[in-house]
């Protein structure tokens, strides 16, 4: 079993709370995205355009669920650093980028597995309640692209800040979450302003965030010194 796969399993075992919260939030997002066909028809004509808001809200919530679902990976990162595991891994010939990649892969795989499950579930439920196929496809694309890019950026940011902190408490993790989420806000807000271009805007932003995350990962692999991974 590869390093990242073991890391993924260990993360799930480490904190089931986050996993459960992630799943519950994902189910809530699924319900939200399929609520529209069940709403009374006159509600659609209110000043608030629920036709746009409901599916997009569900995209935000589903992305957040993926983030929470993969959060234990970064907690494990801090734990392994403090426990001397990285020190041993470095002595075996791995370098810091190998270690970072292992945790990022684990995080992305965890997030992707939840998102894939949620997209399938959403499509099945949506088909059953009569949500349009176009809307279901849009939600699927947006949820996966934004969800994965959010998780990627937040994980890399949290890993970077956790590596750089001097104390052993993992206290810099919230900073990583904050900085990781900020670039994602436009993906959640712009579609409300330009609903016709929602898909293009969000997919483009997701691609940009993915590229930035890859760049950040490669940079921290070079810029963060090995000694920062020592307990």
């Amino acid at each position, binding site marked *: 079993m590869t390093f990242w796969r*073991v890391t993924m399993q260990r993360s799930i075992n480490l904190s089931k709370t986050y996993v459960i919260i992630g799943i519950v939030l994902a189910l809530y997002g699924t319900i939200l995205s399929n609520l529209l066909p069940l709403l009374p028809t006159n509600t659609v004509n209110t000043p608030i355009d629920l036709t746009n808001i409901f599916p997009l809200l569900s995209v935000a919530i589903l992305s957040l669920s993926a983030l929470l679902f993969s959060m234990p990976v970064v907690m494990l990162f801090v734990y392994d650093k403090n*426990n001397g595991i990285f020190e*041993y891994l*470095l*002595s*075996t*010939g791995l370098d810091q980028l190998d270690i970072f990649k292992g945790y990022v892969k684990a995080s992305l795989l965890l997030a992707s597995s939840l998102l894939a499950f949620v997209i399938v579930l959403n499509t099945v439920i949506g088909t059953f309640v009569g949500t349009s196929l176009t809307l279901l496809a849009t939600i699927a694309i947006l949820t996966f692209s934004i969800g994965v890019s959010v998780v990627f950026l937040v994980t890399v940011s949290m890993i970077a800040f956790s590596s750089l902190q001097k104390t052993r408490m993992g206290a810099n993790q919230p900073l990583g979450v904050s900085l990781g989420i900020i670039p994602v806000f436009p993906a959640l807000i712009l579609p409300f302003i330009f609903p016709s271009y929602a898909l293009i805007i969000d997919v483009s932003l997701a691609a940009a965030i993915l590229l930035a995350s890859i760049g950040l990962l490669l940079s921290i692999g070079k810029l963060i010194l*090995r*000694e920062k991974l*020592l307990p």
Partner: protein
Amino acid sequence: MQKLELTEVSSGYGRNEVIHQLSLKITEPSIYVVLGPNGAGKTTLFRTIGGILKPFSGQVKFDESDLFYSKETRRRITYLSHLNAIPEEMTVLDALKYYAEIEGGDVDRVLDLLNLRELKDSKYNTLSQGQKKRVSIGKIFLRDRDLYLLDEPTSNVDPKVSKEIRDILIKLSKDKFVLYSSHNLYEAKEIGTYLILIRNGQLKFFDKVENVKMKHYRIGIKSLNDISRLLPEAKLENDYYVVTVDSPKMVAGIINDLVRGGAELAEVRELDNPLQELFEED
């Protein structure tokens, strides 16, 4: 011939240089005890040799290959830190498998070597300190290596486990290099063939333990009868007649004289550890 060679190595953390221009060459498979007070730089030295820290300057070579840059050479060495570095939520078997997956190796061999088979399904975090240390040491024996770096491997373990670990290392040192740091001077004298003394990040002494010379040796002699008449210069301390000599070679003459004078000797022992004096020197 295998050899570990450090050439004017300076190393540390950030801008804090801990090891200063240290040169060292070891060519004989054996146990090298690394001694030094707290903060002397022992752990930094091990981390630098182990390829964990990049030297600020100088080179660490094993068999002419730069240890920091050659992953292949790094696979021939292993490092045991004073932390156990085992995922606490795993069972003993899973923890060993975890490392075996990353760096290869034979888990079964380790279970037998360190008597861990009966603990293999126990959660690591339920084990005693000694058992945890055995698991931690187990991971460095997953594969055969040529150089073993052990940072205080017997700290926090009971004498039985400590002896088991020493026995394994003694067996290992017949054809492997073992660098072993310890604060226990008696253990160092018992296990070490060579002594490396580090102080303030610099090499202060490197020679065979047997060549460590003391200015004076305190010899304790226990006798079943009163020998104060035969040894008027001796002081009585805890049932031992204590004499101070300039060289261990003088002890045989003293013993012969005592026996000829009618002493019924029960025990003769060196009271101080010869490494103590070296350890405390300025």
